[in-house]
């Protein structure tokens, strides 16, 4: 089985050298998060991921969850691992100190999330879903509800879920049918069936807190008539301990392609007692608070899996000897050369690496924007960062999971036949990654969100938060002797992105199908251009250090060389994407429906 070492060197590079994370402590509320504190947090996270979570990844996948008489059991070792995880305080790192959390900056937490996803994505689903429920409850719940539930959700004694999907409605929540009937005591009786509920039932925590979307009796039709309710598995008693069982039960679990150690449940609510979170009919708002942070997290899942796959592939490519280099023997002492000498193998490894390191920087950019949005003192800065996050969220979710899927597939390919069998774990990364392209809004829906919502909002102001810094960067560096090599390809891709943006906006205004037809290609063009910008910035940081004392491990040299590979061998994809977008949607929409 492939081993996993957290890429702490690159994480520190991204956090401190690229994004200037040393200044986080200057933001109100983050005073204690100096480098002295952040470094040990990352190291401890690496340890728990490498030593506790990763060893359970293969076995968890083989064993999966089991369902019997309404009880779901996680694979062997998960209960112990969860206890270690919780005792280490990892469920609370990103939570509000007022409820026992540690208030870790998003910039740091994102890196921890990546490690968890690399080590054991299925395991990460349990605390991950809890955190989503935490975000909605924290943002929209009454003080009474928050005081009663948040402390135990934060310390990991209880976990949470988000119950959205129903058998007949996933993407279109407007069709939702679950009912909520008000009771005299201020509570509600919830009745309905929810499916695909991650962590809906399991044996890791003493209670499970479900956040459920449902309709009140007087609700308007569609998404404007949906409210959010809190429904505990066990009703807390007066001391706050789990009391009698509530009317919610797991009906079955799904048998899936990947993330098999994560329980995916059918949840039946039968007059279950619940409480309203936020305003009646405003459930979508509270749900989207969760959904937006979840979408960033799902993007990080793609990154984490790509990193894990890359590590496995590199190790294998060095160890596997087979045939000889095309340009003569490289390792005469061995019976054959390691396959890493082959251009095509190197191409695959570098593609994985360029994706991984680029996406890590992109995730860090968004995370930093979230930190500034929440903690900066200037409302104008907050707003600018909020706009950037709104724009980049669909890009991160879709691009990073799509690239993650490509990268994990390349990992299988490097392994050849051994990638296709289960014991090496390379095919598991592919299977685990596949769902990330689907849940929390399919990548097609992300692309529509980008072109249909984020582009036109506020007369296009969101766009400014990306296009202006990039344009300015290009103007500043394009003539530069050493940077020019990297900035010129960026500049070309950027012009394509500008033209495509204008085209999508223009064509989409006249005919929304045109925007829809361009959406996925456009999102990828956007994403690849964003990565090119970040690669250029990474070069800018690295170049002065190449060959210097700090480069004794070759880190900066490798960085610049990976950037070169990205600019020359990945970024040209934008040519094709541009051509596809400019061709318009006619060939897609003119095709006779009956002829499919």
């Amino acid at each position, binding site marked *: 089985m492939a081993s996993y070492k957290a890429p702490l060197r690159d994480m520190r590079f991204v956090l401190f050298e690229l994004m200037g994370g040393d200044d986080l402590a200057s933001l109100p509320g983050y005073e204690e998060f100096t480098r002295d504190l952040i470094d040990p947090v990352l190291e401890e996270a690496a340890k728990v991921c490498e030593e506790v979570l990763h060893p359970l990844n293969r076995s968890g996948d083989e064993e999966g969850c089991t369902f019997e008489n309404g009880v779901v059991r996680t694979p062997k070792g998960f209960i112990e691992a969860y206890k270690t995880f919780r005792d280490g305080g990892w469920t609370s790192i990103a939570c509000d100190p007022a409820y026992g959390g540690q208030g870790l900056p998003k910039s740091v937490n994102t890196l921890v999330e990546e490690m968890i996803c690399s080590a054991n994505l299925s395991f990460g689903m349990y605390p991950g879903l809890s955190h989503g429920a935490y975000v909605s409850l924290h943002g929209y719940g009454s003080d009474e509800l928050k005081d009663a539930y948040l402390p135990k959700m934060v310390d990991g004694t209880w976990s949470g879920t988000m119950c959205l999907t129903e058998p007949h409605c996933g993407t279109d929540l407007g069709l939702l049918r679950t009912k909520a009937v008000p009771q005299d005591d201020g509570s509600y009786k919830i009745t309905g069936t929810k499916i695909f509920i991650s962590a809906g039932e399991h044996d890791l925590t003493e209670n499970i807190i479900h956040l459920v979307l449902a309709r009140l009796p007087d609700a308007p039709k569609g998404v404007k008539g949906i409210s959010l309710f809190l429904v505990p598995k066990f009703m807390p008693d007066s001391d706050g301990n789990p009391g009698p069982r509530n009317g919610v039960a797991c009906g079955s679990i799904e048998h899936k392609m990947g993330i098999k150690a994560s329980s995916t449940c059918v949840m039946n609510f039968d007059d279950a007692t619940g409480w309203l979170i936020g305003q009646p009919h405003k459930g979508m708002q509270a749900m989207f608070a969760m959904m937006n942070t979840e979408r960033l997290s799902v993007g990080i899942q793609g990154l984490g899996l790509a990193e894990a796959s890359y590590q496995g592939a590199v190790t294998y490519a060095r160890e596997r000897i087979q045939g000889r280099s095309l340009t003569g023997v490289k390792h005469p002492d061995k019976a054959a050369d390691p396959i890493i000498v082959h251009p095509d193998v190197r191409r695959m490894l570098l593609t994985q690496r360029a994706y991984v390191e680029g996406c890590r920087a992109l995730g860090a950019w968004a995370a930093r924007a979230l930190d500034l949005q929440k903690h900066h003192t200037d409302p104008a800065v907050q707003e600018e960062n909020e706009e950037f996050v709104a724009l980049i969220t669909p890009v991160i979710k879709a691009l990073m999971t799509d690239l993650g899927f490509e990268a994990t597939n390349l990992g299988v390919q490097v392994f050849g036949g051994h990638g296709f069998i289960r014991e090496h774990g390379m095919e598991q990364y592919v299977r685990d990654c596949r769902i990330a392209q689907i849940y929390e809004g399919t990548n097609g829906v992300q692309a529509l969100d980008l072109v249909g919502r984020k582009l036109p909002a506020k007369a*296009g102001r969101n766009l400014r938060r990306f296009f202006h810094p990039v344009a300015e960067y290009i103007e500043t560096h394009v003539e530069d002797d050493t940077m020019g090599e990297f900035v010129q390809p960026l500049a070309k891709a950027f012009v394509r992105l*500008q033209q495509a943006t204008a085209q999508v906006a223009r064509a989409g205004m006249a005919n929304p199908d045109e925007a829809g037809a361009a959406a996925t290609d456009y999102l990828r063009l956007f994403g690849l251009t964003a990565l090119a910008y970040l690669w250029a910035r990474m070069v800018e940081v690295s170049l002065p250090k190449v060959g210097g004392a700090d480069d004794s491990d070759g880190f900066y040299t490798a960085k610049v060389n990976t950037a070169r590979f990205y600019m020359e061998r990945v970024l040209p994809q934008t040519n094709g994407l541009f051509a596809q977008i400019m061709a318009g949607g006619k060939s897609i929409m003119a095709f006779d429906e009956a002829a499919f």
Partner: protein
Amino acid sequence: MAEINKVAVIGAGVMGAGIAAHVANAGIPVVLLDIVAPAGAGPQSNGSNPNRNAIAEGAVAKMLKTDPAPFMSKAAAKLVTTGNIEDNLDLLADCDWIVEAVIERLDIKQSLYAKVDAVRKKGSVVSSNTSTIPLATLVEGLSDSFAEDFVITHFFNPPRYMRLLEVVGGAKTKAEALDAVSTFADHKLGKSVVRCKDRPGFIANRLGVYWLQAAVVEAFDAGLDIEDVDAIVGKPMGIPKTGVFGLLDLVGLDLMPHVNASLAAALPKDDPFHAMNRPLPMVEKMIADGYTGRKGKGGFYRVNRAKNKAKESVDLATGEYRATKRANVEAVKSMGRKLTRLLDHDSEHGRYAWRVLGQTLAYASALVGDAADEIESIDEAMRLGYNWKFGPFELIDQIGVDWLAAKLEASGMAVPAILKTASGKTFYRVENGTRQVLGMDGAYRDLVRPDGVVMLADIKLKSQPVLKNGSAALWDIGDGVACFEFTSKMNALDPDIMDLLTKSIRRVKKDFKALVVYNEGSNFSVGANLGLAIFAANIAAWTEIESLVAAGQQAYKALKYAPFPVVGAPSGMALGGGCEILLHCDAVQAHAETYMGLVEVGVGLLPGWGGCKEMLTRWASSGKLPKGPMPAVGKAFELISTATVAKSAAEAKEQLFLRPHDGITMNRYRLLADAKAKALSMVDGYQIPEPPVPLALPGPSGKVALEMAVAGFQRLGKATPHDGVVSGEVANVLSGGDTDVIKTVDEDALYDLEREAFMRLVRHPGTLARVEHMLLTGKPLRN
């Protein structure tokens, strides 16, 4: 036919004074008389020597401060001679037309007529502005010679701006009298004259008052929220967004009972108006309590100053004010563009919409043959008298004659005869490119425009454009003249317009003698497409923006130096780039109601399509300013940096947005014909204009002087920080950049300065915030 060269108006109330002002706007001397002011009244009076003309003088003084202004220029006000009807009746002796606009009392009017008849010159026309008293009643007992010269001319308030004039002749009225007044009103006052029968309320108020009353009464019956009512009886029906309650607040609630009572008194017993004319105790109480609308303590809507200027609305059930809510009418949201869907909507709102519009359209149909024989007169009266986008018969065409008849029948209402006549047809149709209208006899006849009226809309029905793209078109309007029309949304200027303009110049050179730039939008153009601009700026497409600026400069410059005469013919707003294209025409024939201005600074930009350059050269060569480089710079700076908009074509001449040789057309319908005539008159011996003499401009020292002035305004709080940035760039362009007085700056150098300054501004966050705010809210941002 007698020509009208001097006019008198008796009665200096809002209507009379407004009519007098508008006659003066036409450049015609006018006498304005009212009763003798009581002692102690009037601005110049003192106890011993009372000013007997104080009422008429006060009316003129008040009009000079009124907004919207009754006068088109200060010069017009000088054409008004004030007086009183006891001392100054002799002033009527040389008037060709005497308008009576006194209180609506028969005895007072008739005794005045006797006095007037004694002094007026033979053949002069006397008219009454009455809105309710039949002509036959007015002339009862008066001499035949008076009755022969007597007509009713019913203006709408405010007389300058409302284009409808209802004209009524009596049995004895001479055709010459009717024609003289109609022609004068058409050509000089710019009115659309609708001949009405001598029936109560004539056309517009007869139907308009019924409609208002129906909308109010039905709203009370249905217990609706007034915001919802105004959202229904408003935009969906092509009615101004003030709707019903907003309109009543505007005209004054107290007016309605008077108008209703006099209409009720004059209409025959079987008129459907009586059934609608029910007392509304709540409204009566509001009037009694002083809640008469905007002029009073508030109306159906009010701004509650005690509550931090909160907007409030009256609850029709309780009569109490409550917080104004946002209209929420599913029936309107779901109608799309189909009025029938609204009228058929199964909801209280849908039923209300039908009750109001169904009864109104039925009443309009019943007026055919009664108030007027021609349906197009009724439509024109409602369009111009009540600002409806569509007349009632145009609305019926939209929903279908038979659909309306069937629904009336199903609702137990009578189906008027004209609807039966029109069964299976439409009231209007286009036959072989000519608009036709259905007569009472069921036969169609051509809609014939009056002599000298050419409408582009008619030409478009009959022909194909010479050139066309998504934002503009070039039309052949006959006699070798082409017409360039903006067709983009709101006539916003965009790259396609510049492209077609460039192509059109080449085409006109080849195939035509002259070009007119004209369109029939409600505004000529309010400038560049800001949505495109902000989008391009948001994606940092600076090169594209700069090439758009350059393309506009080149297109406008090519227009200016085209080898044929170019006449701009604006009406309504001509702002920003819409003003700049006119500045590049050889001549302009402007509708009197044209509002020109370079308003770019409002969105943080400056005129980049030659506007700075043109205003600078115009003022420099005007001969109106002291010598030296600074005065013209200062004048152009003042106009551009404060985004001055001329409030009429006459005012535009004062500011040199228009030049002395540019023409003004009073009647909107005659604008294209006048512009075409002007263009043709320039064809013989046409010479391409010489480029302006390069200017000696002050350079940085001049810029500093202008900036100091702006800094002064900033200290006074009259200019914002970003105003300072924008004004600085305007100052830089107008003072010639880094030139000095010894060098001269030519036209191209000024274009370059404009473009460079524009590009600096468009990248400024302050400017982007202004553009965005304007787009999202329609209001300027003061940052």
